[in-house]
């Protein structure tokens, strides 16, 4: 028998950290000083515009995540954009076939910096059960991915957890990162100028 494996080292998320804890700084009467980077991070992470790229069942879970019961808008992601020009978080949900690969890449290239990518579900992360000739074995073969959400499909809680991990990355990101050599090298490794 194949042993069932549970995640025994699960990280418990701190809701206060995720949403609104103020950055470290110096406060006095009527003013508050802190780093620019922290303020920008705070603003960005609580006003992400997701672009859903839903191709199959994970997309249905995302619809539940957006709806009133789970309500992704609590995290500042009220506005789901359907134009890559306006969005900063690409959420790829579902099986991406090799023929869809260039389309996904095109959508990613059309997004303005700063942009983040979340691979939701087993198919987007690794090809999932579709270990076959026509399916892309994970979207990280064509575009860089920030957060992977496991599950087949993941429950809305898992998608929300992935979203909060994205928020952590966005909040902690230096405003200089996107101009750095390391980031350029990352994009070049995907053949993106």
């Amino acid at each position, binding site marked *: 028998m194949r042993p069932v494996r549970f995640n025994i080292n699960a990280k418990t998320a701190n809701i206060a950290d995720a949403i609104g804890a103020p950055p470290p700084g110096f406060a006095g009467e009527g003013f508050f000083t802190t780093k620019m980077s922290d303020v920008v991070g705070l603003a960005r992470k609580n006003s992400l515009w997701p672009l859903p790229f839903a191709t199959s069942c994970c997309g249905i879970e995302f619809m539940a995540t957006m709806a009133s019961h789970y309500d992704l808008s609590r995290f500042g992601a009220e506005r789901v954009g359907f134009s890559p020009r306006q969005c900063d978080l690409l959420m790829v949900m579902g099986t991406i076939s090799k*023929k869809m690969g260039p389309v996904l890449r095109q959508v990613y290239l059309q997004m303005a910096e700063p942009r983040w990518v979340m691979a939701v579900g087993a198919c987007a992360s690794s090809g999932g059960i579709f270990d076959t*000739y026509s399916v892309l074995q994970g979207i990280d073969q064509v575009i860089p991915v920030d957060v992977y959400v496991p599950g087949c499909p993941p429950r809305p809680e898992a998608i929300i957890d992935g979203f909060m991990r994205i928020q952590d990355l966005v909040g902690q990101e230096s405003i200089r990162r996107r101009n750095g050599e390391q980031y350029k090298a990352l994009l070049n490794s995907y053949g993106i100028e």
Partner: protein
Amino acid sequence: MAITNSYIQEKLTEKFGEQVTNFEETYGMLSFESPKELNLKVLQFLYDEPTLSFQFMTDLTAVHYPNQTGRELAVVYHMHNLVENVRLRFKVYTDISTPDVFTASKLFEAANWMERETFDFFGINFVGHPNLKRVLNVDEMDYFPLRKEYPLEDQTRIDKDDEMFGRG
């Protein structure tokens, strides 16, 4: 008058003699084969003959039989007589080294995309097809995925649980 399978067989044998062979009836549906050079003549006869009038092509696909040397690839036509509601299956076999079969796209518009699909997955070269290129798979693909020449999964993968993918 409902046409019966034996009547269809009789008409075909009358017209093509020994050329049409392997008549069999599975679950009430007639199937037979002919040499691949005759495929258009047979389809045209089935279409034109007033008592048969198989004028609707339901399906066109191929099958790969890797063990039948010299006749590895079978092209299968599914025909339908809409008036009598009778269906039949017509096969032609071809060698895998020269998979040339005449196109049926001049007879049936429906055959156009189905032949492209069959070319895409089995590499049947439909002679005379107006636009024979891949329709479902990526254009860069350099093999025919539904031929039984390859293992189903990529054997070099290490990042997935082998036991779940038949490599264990």
